[in-house]
């Protein structure tokens, strides 16, 4: 069978109706990875044995007439900052190169309960810090559309695995655009849900007030199904909402005559917005207009402060979260430590890569005595104003449409020496994390060089079901 020809929903149906066995589908996924992943580099590890065992159990259930779950037999890839018990979880860092978590993330339990077959763990920027997956300490990942280009990041491996057709579904995490930006660069669908919709238990923490786990797929319907599987309450994440959002997988038909779409003037006026990206995004918006939607210009005056606000909040939280990597409990420990401080400092120096150190340093600085009020507290107040901008906009419109990133995928090595230029590739995505909103990236064309362009749709908090419905509607507008 050719696994790249089917969506996740089709695969689940065909396995259920015994057209394919889960084993055949799993073997097809593994065979494609064997043949092509040396060129792409999407995976850091493959769980061949575990995947085949999971597939055998699905086949047993189906032949016994038992319920195999909505994802029964569907191969799924998981970003390698999400813990799976006794399966290496590296965060693409030398710090955790040999780390075998003693427990699984909530989303992994949910995937397994739904019958998904976990194929392996995907590459990322070390500790999810980066926008191109070039910060991985363990592997290079190429964009399947053209291997001279980066896949985006930080969830570059998951985006590439879906774009290459290795798996129809993958999980990523999004702190400032780490699902939406690589989805856009690779030409797949990626969604960051409302903060609190998905439990982060078992996700290695980066910026706790920003992090969300979300789905990658080749279309919105598959993404909605995956989100519906992983969403819902979990007492082990104290910010996870106590009620599951309803209707995530319903994708109700859109009444375009009643749909108001807002275009943030500031997003389209950004210096550095590529003209081809602008053109494709505007053409996508034109389709909504033709379908009958009302298009309105809106204002998000604080949005120009989103990147600096983010790089204070995210690095401050990272410096605190990453203090747990101390060489004492797990992860890398340096040799021959003279005392405990020496053990901490040298273990961290040897275990962390450059971008991680840079962010820990910046976060420590903005939190340090004398600078806390000037940087961190000020950033939290600006964050309130950014969230208010969105809240005001959503009094007028249902959905905000925007680019995902200012350009299409850049070439490998193009931005590695300029951290600030790299940070600016997240300019359209990070405000969504700051405000806790859901955002989705979906393909809306290609640039002249063949690289995909993404359309970003954003809705008000907890309107994830509506956001998915509008995204699915757009795909049908053709």
């Amino acid at each position, binding site marked *: 069978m050719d696994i790249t020809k089917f969506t996740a929903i089709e695969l689940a149906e065909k396995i259920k109706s015994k057209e394919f066995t889960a084993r055949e589908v799993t073997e097809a996924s593994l065979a494609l990875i064997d043949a092509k992943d040396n060129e792409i580099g999407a995976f850091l590890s493959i769980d061949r044995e575990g995947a085949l065992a999971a597939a055998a159990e699905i086949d047993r259930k189906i032949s016994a007439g038992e319920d195999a779950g909505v994802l029964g037999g569907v191969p799924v890839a998981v970003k390698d900052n999400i813990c799976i018990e006794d399966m290496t979880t590296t965060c693409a860092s030398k710090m955790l190169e040999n780390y075998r978590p003693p427990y699984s993330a909530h989303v992994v339990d949910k995937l397994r309960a739904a019958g998904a077959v976990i194929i392996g763990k995907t590459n990322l920027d070390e500790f999810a810090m980066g926008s191109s997956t070039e910060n991985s300490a363990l592997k290079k990942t190429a964009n399947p559309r053209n291997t001279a280009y980066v896949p985006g990041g930080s969830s570059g491996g998951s985006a590439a695995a879906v774009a290459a057709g290795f798996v129809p579904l993958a999980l990523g995490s999004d702190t400032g655009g780490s699902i939406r930006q690589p989805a856009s660069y690779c030409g797949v669908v990626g969604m960051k849900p409302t903060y609190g919709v998905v439990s982060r238990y078992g996700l290695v923490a980066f910026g706790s007030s920003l992090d969300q786990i979300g789905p990658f797929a080749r279309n919105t319907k598959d993404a909605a199904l995956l989100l519906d599987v992983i969403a819902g309450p979990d007492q082990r994440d104290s910010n996870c909402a106590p009620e599951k959002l309803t209707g995530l997988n319903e994708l109700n038909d859109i009444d375009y005559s009643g749909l108001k779409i807002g275009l943030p003037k500031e997003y389209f006026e950004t210096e550095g917005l590529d003209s081809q990206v602008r053109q494709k995004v505007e053409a996508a918006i034109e389709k909504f207009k033709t379908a009958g939607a009302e298009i309105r210009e809106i204002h998000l005056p604080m949005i120009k402060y989103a990147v600096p606000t983010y790089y204070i909040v995210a690095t401050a939280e990272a410096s605190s979260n990453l203090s747990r990597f101390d060489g004492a409990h797990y992860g890398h420990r340096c040799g021959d430590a003279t*005392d405990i401080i020496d053990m*901490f400092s040298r273990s961290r120096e040897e275990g962390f890569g450059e971008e991680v150190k840079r962010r820990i340093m910046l976060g420590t600085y903005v939190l340090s005595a004398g600078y806390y009020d000037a940087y961190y507290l000020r950033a939290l107040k600006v964050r309130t104003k950014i969230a208010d901008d969105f809240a005001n906009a959503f009094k007028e419109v249902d959905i905000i449409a925007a680019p995902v990133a200012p350009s299409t995928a850049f070439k490998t090595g193009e931005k590695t020496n300029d951290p600030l230029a790299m940070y600016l590739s997240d300019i359209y995505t990070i405000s969504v994390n700051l405000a806790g909103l859901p955002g989705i990236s979906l393909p809306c064309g290609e640039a002249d060089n063949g690289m995909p362009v993404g359309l970003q749709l954003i809705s008000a908090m907890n309107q994830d079901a509506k956001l998915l419905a509008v995204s699915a509607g757009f795909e049908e507008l053709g």
Partner: protein
Amino acid sequence: MSKITEEDIKKIALLSRLELDEKEVGKFAGQLESILEYIEHLSEVDIEGVEPFISAAASGNVFREDRIIPSLPNEKALQNAPKSGEGFFKVPAVIK
């Protein structure tokens, strides 16, 4: 305010528990300075009377009942320890 010296970098590195080498100290001084210069833009924003944004969770912090549930067994908790013995994590002496 945003002039970052190599001395500043060494102080932040100590607070961060990172033993940077001289090359990294020089590199980070320049890079952090340009990032901080960019971050300075926030000083333009009028934040008079604005409350800090504490949580993005619509429902705020979710509390659970305080009850005893099984936790990781000792050997599982120690399975990744660089050094362990007699059921403990082993580290260099903390008090001399």
